[in-house]
């Protein structure tokens, strides 16, 4: 039975959304601004009107008010109560439920320790808490009253990239250890792929596709999903040769690349246009994943430029910032050099062949 189930949700933004999240799963809701991601979280929390059904562990909660739904909600800007110190913020959800003071103290201290904010317990949110610390306090407060589901609305938007990345990793770890079903809203596909066990793509109030990052990346259902994933370049692999340290060499049509490898047969490889470097000069260093080819097409989509470059019998789209592109002085027909960093290359494995291979290996080990 799914932990959270939405059945035919309709309201002023959402259009017939049906979605499930399993126990302990982190489901990333991805979509452009205004797609209805936050509204969907508000539907689950009971903060906005809707038609349809919301079920927690198979039990409808549509008639329950937000205070009785037991959801932990982390809003975009953390929404810490400014007049309460860190301890009081975390304790709030427990105090309003009328728990005993000693039990509250025990739970709050446990959470402050878990989120490593014990030393901040007397501080007020607007008096010397960094963005990362505020985020941890908000998260501790959200999970304090033992919610059934955690709703996170772009929680790292207001932080710098490095802090956001660190906190994403930390959140993922905490979420796994707490085993709490989580719905995580983001408009960033990189964030969605890093965080989500599965990703649900929402566009103009409708659910476009649900699946793992790899499923979406290699099999986008339509152009909206593909665009949201950055319209990746996808190539079919003709042959692959394992190299050392988790890498394999794959042969595409007239091009060979070094890609991540986990032992399973590689069926397809994909790379997002934004992750390919383009240059007018031959790049220095070992000639691994360095390609060269003529520029076939230049398409301006300010502030980026999409450039199609012919490589072997294939062609790939590269996305560059307009300012940086102008500096290269490259024109259609010129020869360009590309670098494809292996870590940004996604690999789709052949699951059936992979399973047979694993079976063979197991049998061999037994013999």
């Amino acid at each position: 039975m799914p932990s959270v189930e939405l059945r035919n949700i309709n309201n002023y933004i959402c259009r017939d959304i049906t979605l499930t999240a399993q126990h302990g799963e982190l489901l990333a809701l991805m979509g452009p601004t205004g797609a209805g991601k936050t509204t969907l979280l508000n539907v689950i929390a009971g903060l906005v009107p809707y038609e349809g059904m919301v079920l927690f562990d198979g039990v409808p909660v549509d008639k329950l008010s937000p205070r009785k739904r037991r959801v932990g909600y982390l809003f975009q800007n953390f929404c810490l109560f400014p007049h309460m110190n860190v301890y009081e913020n975390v304790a709030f959800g427990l105090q309003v439920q009328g728990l005993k003071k000693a039990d509250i103290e025990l739970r709050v201290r446990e959470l402050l320790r878990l989120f490593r904010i014990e030393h901040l317990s007397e501080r007020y949110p607007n008096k010397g808490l960094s963005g990362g610390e505020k985020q941890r306090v908000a998260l501790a407060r959200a999970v304090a009253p033992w919610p059934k589901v955690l709703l996170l609305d772009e929680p790292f938007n207001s932080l710098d990239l490095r802090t956001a990345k660190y906190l994403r990793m930390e959140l993922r770890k905490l979420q796994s250890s707490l085993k709490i079903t989580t719905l995580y809203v983001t408009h960033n596909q990189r964030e969605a792929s890093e965080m989500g066990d599965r990703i649900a793509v929402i566009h103009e109030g409708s659910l476009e596709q649900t699946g793992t990052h790899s499923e979406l990346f290699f099999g986008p259902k339509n152009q909206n999903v593909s665009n949201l994933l950055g319209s990746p370049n996808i190539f079919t692999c003709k042959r692959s040769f394992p190299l050392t340290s988790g890498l394999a060499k794959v042969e595409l049509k007239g091009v060979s690349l070094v890609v991540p490898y986990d032992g399973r047969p590689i069926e397809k490889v994909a790379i997002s246009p934004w992750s390919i470097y383009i240059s007018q000069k031959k790049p220095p260093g070992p000639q691994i994943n360095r390609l060269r080819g003529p520029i076939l097409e230049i398409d301006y989509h300010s502030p980026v430029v999409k450039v199609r470059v012919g490589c072997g019998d294939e062609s790939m789209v590269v996305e560059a910032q307009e300012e940086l592109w102008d500096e290269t002085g490259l024109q259609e027909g010129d020869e360009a050099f590309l670098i494809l960093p292996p870590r940004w290359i996604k690999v789709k494995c052949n699951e059936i062949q992979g399973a047979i291979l694993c079976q063979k290996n197991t049998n061999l080990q037994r013999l």
Partner: protein
Amino acid sequence: MNRPKKIRPWWGILPVAIFLALWEGAARLNLMPGQLFLPPFSVVMQEFYYLIASGVLVDNFLSSLVRVVIGFCAGSIVGLIIGTFMGWKEILNKTFNPIISLVYPIPALGWLPLLMLWIGVNEMLPITIIFICSFFPVLYNTITGIREVNKELINTARTLGASERHILIRVVLPLALPNIFTGLQLEAGMAWRVVIAAEMVAIPTGIGALMMRAESLIRVDIIIVCLIVLSLMCLLFERSFAYLGQRFTSKWK
């Protein structure tokens, strides 16, 4: 490197001292038309002492103080309670806002003739005027303070399991305090200005009445003493509420 110059607290006293010296000098040297209309500062201070020692000033001051305290407290408390409900419940705000918007612009003293007819010239008259004077600003500031509380904070409290009562008492009212104290601070001084005006027009006791008696006896020194008392009380009341507001919110604001 140019360092910003420190402003020392006594610098504010300097212009006051110069003003008092000029006043004293001008009055003593008869630069103004005699002591009749501008007695020297020292004479005013002498009169101040005499009025306190004889009990005249204290009696009148206490009469005014009692009126201000009762009227101001009643007006503020009622304003705070009604403002809280109107700010919290949209339906109440929509229902009562039109009538309050119509009544609010009437100056408190504008009610005086009507109230003299309705309740007569007695102790209730200045108290009612002060009540009206305090009620509306506190009401408006409370409504504004409550409505300005971030809705996401309210929704956060809601999802954390807080009831409407809990949200109001533990989240909304504390966050509306800065606005409420602004209203209280403004009206604490205004209450003194209004009570003096009411006493001057209609009531035989209090600082305002003392000023009117002094005027009929052409005692400029007593009038100035009353003005000094009025000024000090306005300042004291306003600063007290500013201090209280600061005290309640400085921890987190």
